[in-house]
């Protein structure tokens, strides 16, 4: 399968899960008629995606004096970033170092990450925290506030030194509301909500020179020309790979991977996904939702149906998740309301540290409130939930993909974490690489706006036909398949 090798993977690349492979091999949503009728627009830098990486990229590019359009499928801030609970890694402790952070990250990813990206990530860490404070983000302190105060540091699974900085267990909320406000108030950033990208634009030399957006409010296509495009479209949890529930937001449907791949960008580790160990298994309405690693970091135990602990709760996420699945598979799980999992022993934790619920674990308090029970008396039932797309578009340390003019930052990119991600490295990644991509994209010459077109799509469609797949399903998916959505019908209505 030479033309469309996504399912097999050339040169020994492990194949992506079938639902993702099907999307990568899909046909375009867009046709020439839609393109001909599209409304033209221009930007110096186009950012696709309204989470933390997109916001950081937009702020960096606008800070360099560029006119930026940030287009997003849902609404600015509706993202996995806002849902992040645990915190952000940065090596600031006196016993810590950038080298320790580098070593932990590489080991946590089974020595499969791109070491140059990891070096960039950990080196940016402290400056990222300073930048966030400058924007007005709060971080928890060890003791009382004041000059000379120290940051509260928590230990992430799979690390050697406490390195997680946080705002209680709602770090992503605190980060995203600050970033969103900064973006929305910036005079050189235009935010376009409900405008998903449906295709990228290429020029004759194969560079990315813009994107076609679909404006859901006005039911029209927009032809947005820009000398630099930053993909910050996030991951793919809503594909429910392997039938797992997910902790991801509604829009995580692999759109960025599909667009980048069709354009010819190189992708990596597409078979590697992180299953967060402590997704809610019971109560059923909350299933798939996340219980922050902060709860285990604070000392909560995992207990099986025999009342036994079965794993060091603070090992790397993939190891803890596998241990839980093993307990369930070997009949030592707990069944409640038709759901199987293991206990997260919050009663034990809160008996040992009674004030945690009010001070550090406010997210847990809210979750228990929604669940309708008291976590001091009753434990949650947990099981792994699809949490993070480890792989993605190959990037260099400036965030540029293998396609000139096309950048990627955050979950849509690959190589920063390798085949497993440590807690707290995602929030660091989105700011570190988001800002790098934004600054580098801003440095591209803007003198000539290339006309751009979808010749790469025509080439792709010819390859589909040659492979006997001319009627391949269309993608990007845009929305999960819980209820039907047809772009054509929507645009025709």
């Amino acid at each position, binding site marked *: 399968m030479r*033309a*469309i090798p996504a399912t097999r*993977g*050339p040169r*020994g*690349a492990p194949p992506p899960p079938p639902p993702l492979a099907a999307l990568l091999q899909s046909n375009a949503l867009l046709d020439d008629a839609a393109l001909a009728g599209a409304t033209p627009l221009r930007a110096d830098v186009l950012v696709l995606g309204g989470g933390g990486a997109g916001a950081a990229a937009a702020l960096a590019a606008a800070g360099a004096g560029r006119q930026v359009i940030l287009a997003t499928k*849902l*609404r600015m801030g*509706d*993202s996995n970033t*806002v*849902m992040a609970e645990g915190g952000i890694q*940065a090596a*600031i402790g*006196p016993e810590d170092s*950038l*080298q320790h952070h*580098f070593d932990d990250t590489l080991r946590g990813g*089974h020595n*499969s990450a791109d070491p140059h990206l990891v070096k960039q990530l950990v*080196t940016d860490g*402290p*400056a990222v925290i*300073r930048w966030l404070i*400058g*924007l*007005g983000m709060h*971080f928890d302190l060890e003791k009382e506030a004041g000059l*000379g*105060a120290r*940051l509260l540091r928590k230990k992430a699974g799979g690390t050697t030194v406490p390195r997680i900085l946080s705002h209680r267990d*709602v770090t992503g909320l605190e980060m995203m509301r600050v970033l*969103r*406000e900064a973006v929305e*108030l910036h005079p050189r950033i235009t935010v376009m909500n409900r405008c998903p990208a449906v295709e990228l634009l290429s020029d004759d030399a194969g560079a990315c020179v813009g994107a076609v957006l679909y404006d*859901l409010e006005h039911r029209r296509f927009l032809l947005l020309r820009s000398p630099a495009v930053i993909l910050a479209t996030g991951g793919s949890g809503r594909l*429910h*790979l*392997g039938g797992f*529930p997910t902790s991801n*937001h*509604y829009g995580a449907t692999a759109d960025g991977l599909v667009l980048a*791949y069709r354009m*010819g960008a*190189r992708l*990596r*580790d*597409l*078979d590697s996904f992180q299953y967060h160990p402590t997704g809610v298994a019971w109560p059923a*309405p909350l*299933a*798939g939702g996340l219980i922050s690693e902060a709860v285990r970091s604070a000392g909560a135990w995992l207990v099986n149906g025999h009342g036994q602990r079965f794993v060091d709760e603070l090992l790397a996420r*993939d190891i803890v*998740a596998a241990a839980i699945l093993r307990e369930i598979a070997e009949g030592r799980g707990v069944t409640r309301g038709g759901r*199987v999992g293991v206990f997260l022993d919050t009663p034990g934790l809160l008996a040992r540290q009674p004030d945690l619920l009010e001070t550090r674990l406010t997210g847990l308090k809210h979750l228990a409130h929604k669940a309708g029970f008291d976590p001091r008396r009753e434990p949650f039932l947990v099981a792994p939930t699809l949490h993070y797309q480890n792989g993605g578009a190959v990037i260099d340390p400036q965030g540029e993909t293998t396609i000139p003019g096309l950048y990627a930052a955050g979950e849509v990119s*690959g190589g920063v974490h*390798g085949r497993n991600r440590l807690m707290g490295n995602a929030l660091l990644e989105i700011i570190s690489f988001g800002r790098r991509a934004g600054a580098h994209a801003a440095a591209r010459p803007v003198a000539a706006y290339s006309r751009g077109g979808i010749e790469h799509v025509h080439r792709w469609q010819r390859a589909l036909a040659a492979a006997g797949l001319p009627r391949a399903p269309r993608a990007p998916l845009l*929305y*999960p398949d819980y*209820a039907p959505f047809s772009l054509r019908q929507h645009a025709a209505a």
Partner: protein
Amino acid sequence: MDAHTPPPPEAGPAAAPAAGITLVIDGVEITAAPEASILQAAAHGTAALTANIGCMGQGVCGSCRCMVRRQGERQVETRLACETRAEAGMEVSFIDYFIPEHRHVYDIAEVTESWGLLDQLNAIFPEAAHCRHCGGCDRACPKGIAVQQGVALCVAGDFDAAARGFDECVMCNLCTLACPEHIRPNNLGLFVRRATAALTLRPIDLVRRLREIEQGAMAVEIPPEAGAGAAPAVEHDA
């Protein structure tokens, strides 16, 4: 972990069962699982949601704000659909996003003078002092924040207390919708939160580490075997 691991038996997105409860969402009758949230009911409805949906259950993005009337009640309440359980006979209307008429524009990088913070607050949010204590914001808030009191703390310059008061705000903008004085309480609260962090948070461990990095005392060495476990990448050759 291998992406192809068989799923645990209970896994999979919550789908509406054959027998469930019936409620009306934006004029359309929907059948939902008995324990579903309003948002889960809507997401598994007749057409894919393209708005008023984001984090899908965590209650942190503020997208799924809606008006809810329970069966047999006259009172309409504002809620987040993801945090409210669907009930038989419930009537739900999602609340659209709107282009705000009043914008309070500032650049946090220009808020540098802590002696003048109160003056700056009054200049950027001049309406805040005009609160008529109608309590609309408090009733509108789906998070139970004491919004009106928070506004008063901001105006009084009790910044730390005000910042704490808005700590759990998810910026759903319902208080702004409810405010007849155009105060935009959530943006006001966020301004105070941002200003207090940007003006006062100076962790000494971070300061010291930044200095070490600047002085070149924190190099990262890449060992020769680093990244040796990487799998090959893919690209199509069409």
